[in-house]
């Protein structure tokens, strides 16, 4: 089998020893050719994929975009940018079948990504680069690398493929430096978002983060909170866990922390035009979480007098969530429908494939099946189109820039 694949000029990474490579090759080929909206009988509508991950292969990729000083630093010292990844490539959850390019970093090859994520029905895909800038403790190095990544994104992603939009990578650990980077590139029409990792050193609703949000709002950018974050502090409320699966599963708790922080700190009162998108959250914790917060706020709101209406109202106005991966039991359609309604319906949810991460297809398909046609149109593109203020003109602008 390996010999055959080598003859085809492909290298594949076997995620699971039980994989039937021949069968998966066939499945992947079909995936490449079909549209992502493999939903029989649904209205024909252009898809917006609100969660596609582009990744930096190595620091070498960024060299043309680094100053002489930082090039020399890379060449002479052990510095090679962030030494951790939010999605370690070989983790069984990090790469879907067929999405591993020869360089071993899924999402780093624009040709492969375009072929696999930009099917014929995709109007726009929003790139979410999760490069761990916050793992770089030297603030100047962090800022330099972030700037290089953004220049790389402009030159090698946005200007090559008009259907792509991207997220500005920032040194989120230093909100002032982050604001400066947002100001530097924020007017480029291809950037629609600022990427912030979930596990920050302090909750992002805090006053310390205002410069970052102010800059995002000034340049009409969504702030997107994605799984990841390497502040150096323990990754849970109760210290350091032991296993990778705990780190992976625990991300939803930090998403809850961040939503709570933004709501009770009055971030959306300070910045009424602010829009926040949350990725990789799993989603289904949202209804119980909001019930609890709304209830406790009634008793405890004297410390947060700026919160003038119940927190869930601000959430519905300002925050959106993407649909993959979804934490649902796949057999119980009535329950999935009930959860969807409790979450706030199609206005709250944006389709995101989470390419190139593992595709939890059963969950995705079960969820899509409970939507009405109108809800489907919202989820598959309408909600994102509105939230990100996408227009066809922007695609042409980014190609011409």
């Amino acid at each position, binding site marked *: 089998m390996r010999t055959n694949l080598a003859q085809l000029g492909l290298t594949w990474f076997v995620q699971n020893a039980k994989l039937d490579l021949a069968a998966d090759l066939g499945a992947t080929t079909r995936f490449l050719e079909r549209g992502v909206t493999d939903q029989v009988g649904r209205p024909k509508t252009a898809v917006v994929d609100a969660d596609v991950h582009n990744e930096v292969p190595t620091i070498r990729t960024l060299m043309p975009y680094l100053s002489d000083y930082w090039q020399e630093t890379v060449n002479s010292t052990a510095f090679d940018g962030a030494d951790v990844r939010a999605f370690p490539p070989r983790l069984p959850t990090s790469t879907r079948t067929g999405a591993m390019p020869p360089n071993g970093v899924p999402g780093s090859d624009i040709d492969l990504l375009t072929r696999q994520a930009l099917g014929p029905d995709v109007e726009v895909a929003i790139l979410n680069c999760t490069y761990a800038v916050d793992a770089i403790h030297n603030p100047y190095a962090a800022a330099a690398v972030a700037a290089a990544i953004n220049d790389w994104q402009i030159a090698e992603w946005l200007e090559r493929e008009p259907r792509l939009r991207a997220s500005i990578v920032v040194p989120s650990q230093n909100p002032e430096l982050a604001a400066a980077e947002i100001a530097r590139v924020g007017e480029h029409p291809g950037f629609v978002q600022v990427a912030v990792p979930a596990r920050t050193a302090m909750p992002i609703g805090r006053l310390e983060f205002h410069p970052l949000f102010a800059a995002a709002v000034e340049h009409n950018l969504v702030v997107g909170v994605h799984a990841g974050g390497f502040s150096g502090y323990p990754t849970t409320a109760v210290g350091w866990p032991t296993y990778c699966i705990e780190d992976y599963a625990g991300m939803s708790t930090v998403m809850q922390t961040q939503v709570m922080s933004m709501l009770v700190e009055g971030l959306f009162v300070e910045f009424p035009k602010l829009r926040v998108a949350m990725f990789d959250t*799993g989603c289904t914790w949202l*209804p119980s979480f909001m019930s609890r917060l709304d209830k406790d706020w009634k008793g405890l709101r004297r410390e947060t007098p700026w919160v003038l209406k119940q927190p869930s109202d601000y959430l519905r106005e300002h925050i959106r969530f993407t649909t993959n991966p979804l934490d649902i*039991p796949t057999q119980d359609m009535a329950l999935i429908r009930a959860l969807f309604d*409790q979450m706030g319906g199609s206005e709250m949810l944006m389709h995101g494939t989470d390419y190139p991460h593992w595709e939890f297809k059963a969950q995705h398909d079960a969820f899509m099946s409970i939507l009405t046609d109108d809800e489907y149109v919202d989820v598959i593109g309408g909600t994102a189109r509105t939230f990100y203020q996408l227009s066809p003109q922007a695609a042409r602008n980014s190609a011409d820039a």
Partner: protein
Amino acid sequence: MTFTRPKEDNPSIRATTALVDCDVHTTFPSDKVMMELLPERWRDYHRSFADAYVSSAYPRTVRNAARVDSWPPNGAPPGSDLNFLQEQLLDEWGIGCAILGPLLRVARSGLQNPEYAAAFASAVNDWTASEWLAKDERLAGSIVTPYEDSELTVAEIERLALNKRFVQIYVLVGTSSPLGNRKYWPIYQMAVRYDLPVGIHFGSGSATGAGWPSYYLEDHCGNAQSFQSQVISLVCEGVFERFPTLKIVLIEGGFAWLPPLAWRLDRAFERLHTDVPHLARRPSEYIAENIWLTTQPIEEPKAPYALKDLVDSFPALEDKLMFSTDYPHWDFDAPDEALRKSRLPQETLSKIFHGNAQKLYRF
């Protein structure tokens, strides 16, 4: 354990169910009382160093985080006076059994002198036995422990394990490492040896996976995320695989977050099970078997059937939820209000209000 008859003029919910209240908080009437209970060696230590071990990162919006009407007439703190507690809680609501959880410890966010903590825990437990359990048959105790030190905790458990009035081992949710960590396993060994549940209670440590929030509101709601991290740890470290008969009670963490977390862990397990080959079952199976939860603070969704849907979505909850008031705290759940609009069937409510606790704690 006997049950008192509820008062004749109380409404039907009290007449038909003898309530078990799984979360009631007692405290020392004064520092003087506490000092008298400490051995001499620790009295001097306490005089010098007690202030260094105070932990209160987020000031509660009411004093002692208590209902304003729960201060006894003698001016002592809420939960410190037996007579007043009997009157305001046990007699008022026809409570057949109340499980006490003293929220007393000497530690500040990880700073903990283990022997001091152990001496303090012993003093609290002895005080509970003599001033509360000995004086009212309706009361059951929790063994307060210096849980960051497994050896000293084992000693304290062994000291009290055969006293049937103590019905569980007690730790607080804000631990220095997640509770699945092997350093805590000697505690679980004791728990299964003596068939005592381990109660994990809200409190102590308010940091999150993204640092320290600003307000008590976040601290209060944020404990739910701490409980979730503890469940993830207990399951993934294989605590329930190693100790299949271990019973964990999550106290004052809410419960509506449990099914989504179980679904999340199962999904993660689909792809990451090779990270944890010691797990023979799916995470949701361990959760369904080994974890109990007290009801307060109930998430109270607005949609009338949402709580019933939640319990239906994770059927184990029917046998694992146990009613609690959290007396004397400000977010006390009154027995005639809690779950009243939940649309849960009467049979389930009976389990929640007394059946499940009776079975777990073997009253």
